């Protein structure tokens, strides 16, 4: 594609992606979630572990009578786990799975703020780099001097993408049980 065409595509993509994002942090990296997908933010609470689930599934919690699963985003991205602080919270997002709406929680280190990111501030995902797999990224938002990685949360949490990771985690879990037996 010529640079002019690239610019046009980039612009229309950016136009589509412009809007409000909830920003949060995992370690030193800052991410953004489309605000429309955020149901609520709750302080960290005790999570009931569910056996034989992938590493990144922390377990389930009781949200006003609804049982929802909670994902450790760090684990999902292959980052090291971090100690819990009093800034750690759970963001409840509403994603689409199999044509149905599903509420899931994600554990993050720190929630920052809601930012209105204009089309001019959004660029396409980088070609390489990051512990984050590229298809999870909607784009990169540049605010002042920092860059927020805008996540496609449906893809991040979708079952298919996790399959490869899930297989490895399960094998490890089974191996641990077998060794203990």
């Amino acid at each position, binding site marked *: 594609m010529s640079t002019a065409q690239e610019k046009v595509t980039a612009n229309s993509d950016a136009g589509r992606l412009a809007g409000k994002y909830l920003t949060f942090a995992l370690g030193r990296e800052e991410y953004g979630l489309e605000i429309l997908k955020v149901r609520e933010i709750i302080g960290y609470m005790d999570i*009931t572990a*569910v056996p034989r689930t992938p590493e990144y*599934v922390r377990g389930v*919690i*009781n949200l006003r*009578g609804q*049982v929802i699963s909670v994902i450790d985003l760090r684990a999902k991205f292959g980052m090291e786990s971090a100690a819990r602080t009093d800034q750690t919270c759970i963001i409840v997002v509403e994603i689409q*799975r199999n044509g149905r709406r599903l509420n*899931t929680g994600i554990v993050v280190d720190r929630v920052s703020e809601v930012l209105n990111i204009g089309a001019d501030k959004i660029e396409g995902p980088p070609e390489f780099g990051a512990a984050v797999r590229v298809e999870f990224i909607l784009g990169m938002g540049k605010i002042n001097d920092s860059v927020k990685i805008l996540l496609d949360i449906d893809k991040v949490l979708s079952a298919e993408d996790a399959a490869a990771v899930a297989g490895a985690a399960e094998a490890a879990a089974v191996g641990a049980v077998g060794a203990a037996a």
Partner: protein
Amino acid sequence: MQKLTALTDRLVSSTLVAKSDDLPALAAVHTLLQSLRGEADRPESRAAVEAEAGGADRLGAVRDAARTTERLVESIILREVSDAEASMRQVESAVASLQQMINELMGAPEGQGATQKSVPPGQTQAAAAPAPTATAAPSPVTGGAAPAATGAGSSAGDQPHRIEEADLPLVFEFVAEAATHLESAEAGLLKLDEDPNDAESINAVFRGFHTIKGVAGFLNLKQIGSLAHAAETLLDLARKQKLSLTGGCLDIVLESSDAMKRLIAALDAAAKNNQPVPPDASLAALLERLERAIKDPQSVAASAAKKSSETETATETAAATPNTTNTASAASAASAPATATPVSAASGDGSVRVSTDRLDNLINMVGELVIAQSMANQDVLSAAGGDHRLTRSMQRLGKITRELQDLSMSMRMVPIQGVFQKMSRVVRDVSRKIGKQVDFSFTGGETELDRNVVEAIGDPLVHMVRNSVDHGIEPPDARIRAGKPPSGKVTLRAYHQAGNVVIEIADDGRGLNKGKILQKAIANGLVPAGQESQMSEQDVFKLIFAAGLSTADKVTDVSGRGVGMDVVRKNVEALRGRIETASVEGQGSTFTIRLPLTLAVIDGLIVRVGDQRYIIPILSVEQSIRPRAQELSTVQDRGEMCLIRGAVLPLFRLHKLFNVKPKHEDPTQALIVIVEEGGRRCCLMIDELVGQQQVVIKSLSESLGQLKGVSGGAILGDGSISLILDVPGLVQLAVKSETE
């Protein structure tokens, strides 16, 4: 162009119900105006009106009028007008003239019910169904291809019939009512089988078809109308005693009832998927035979025997279709309100149609209320237990919540009458087909079950009833030789017992032959040869539920392939029920199905392992004991066993399976729970028993997929989540981990 009319109709009704301060309603009107404008702007619409003189101009006028009205609505929403009421009235008259313009554009309405119905204002529409229209508005029904003109209206229904959007709520209501009419018609027909002169029944069947004919005519449903008319004519002759409803004539009416069910099901499916209704190919032949019957009843009566095989297949569809219709409507996510929960038989006491989605929502909410109340109760008691007034208030709240829960659960209950009735038909058709004489009767039809359970139990019951007639009941001569009356008896019983619903299927046939069952089981490798002596009678009976086992000497197309009982058992277990067998050779068999009264709540035994609590369904628990050292043993140093009352059962450590640090590693210090599921028993090692509680099951499968060993989650009284264990899954897990 059809779309324009549909949009206008909805616009008219929405405007009528919108008040100047009702923002959501105004927003709906605004959206409709936008859609209208968009529709008028499309090249296809312009092409459609181009042919007429001034057509394009008029379309442009429609577009402009829509835009102006849109802006007016906007200003009302944004409160930019000084007199909202006056502006609303302006909107109303603008919409009225829009409607006028569009009517003129469409020219003379050509058998298009929609336009006809809306000109006497959308009042009839609005009055009849304002809620459904409003619900339908945001739904995706507006999407999809703009339906072309209703051509099917004119031809004799041999073209796919397109259902108009405005008719959708009426169609769904028709489907639900037709089902009820057909049910009572079939009941009447079966009574006529015994007593062809029962005037009451003839009238009932006649009325059923007559009513269907009426509504079908109103909704322009040609095929359904023709069938209803033909059947009604035949029945009228019967009413006037010009013919007798026996043999072939009765069969043909039964066939018509089946065909009608098929047509209604097709209509329902088409309406849900926004598709045209495909014409039914077999209808023409049936109509022809009905005509012949009307002209010359005698000729039809004679051909009774031949038709019975067709009726058999029809019964399959008949038994299956109402199920499909019900399941489909239960699971429907379509725009218009789904069908209602039938509250009672046609006894005429007041009832209300409620969408099943709403009902399910209500029940979920009540479920959450129970949990919230329980949590609040605990917190209040621990914080201010001494305050009498507060405690009393909380007690009252608890009582009211429990009553509310019982009440809401009961709303989903329906009598099992309908399912039992269907069995009547199954018995009649199967027995005729294979030449056996069977007396069928049932009691307890008024016993109520959860709607979903009633649907799910239908197929298993059909299978078991067929089995009884096919394998259980002997042919008349064999019965006479055995000293029994030539006609066999098959009875169904339903009743409540200890929080369960019990359904019994009994026959006085030849009973289960233990020898034959064992033979087949050994031949299939299910039982190692030489083990027979160790098996109790119950163990042998349980074998009939194994896949692939059938003691039928020959396979008929009714049964004999050995796939049925296995599926029956699975279905019953999926409903968290159990099935028991009792039989005496030569005398008969009785199968007893026990089902829990509600699907979402179970009695659970709460156990603790380490700092985690789990729930084991009480139904699976036999007992719990503290084992003594001499009762424990290991096999090959890997599998642990425990001796319980003479039986050696495998022992599984929950803490190992779930990777939890337990309080006790030594089984003699811990507790073991003996569980039984699907005929297999095993021991689960836990730290302690916490208690017994009724818990609401929350599904985890949507978020976490199918988990082995865990059937769901439950919220305990203190708000924490406990996993509900699935015993068969646990056993599989344990066995797998031990062999690795």
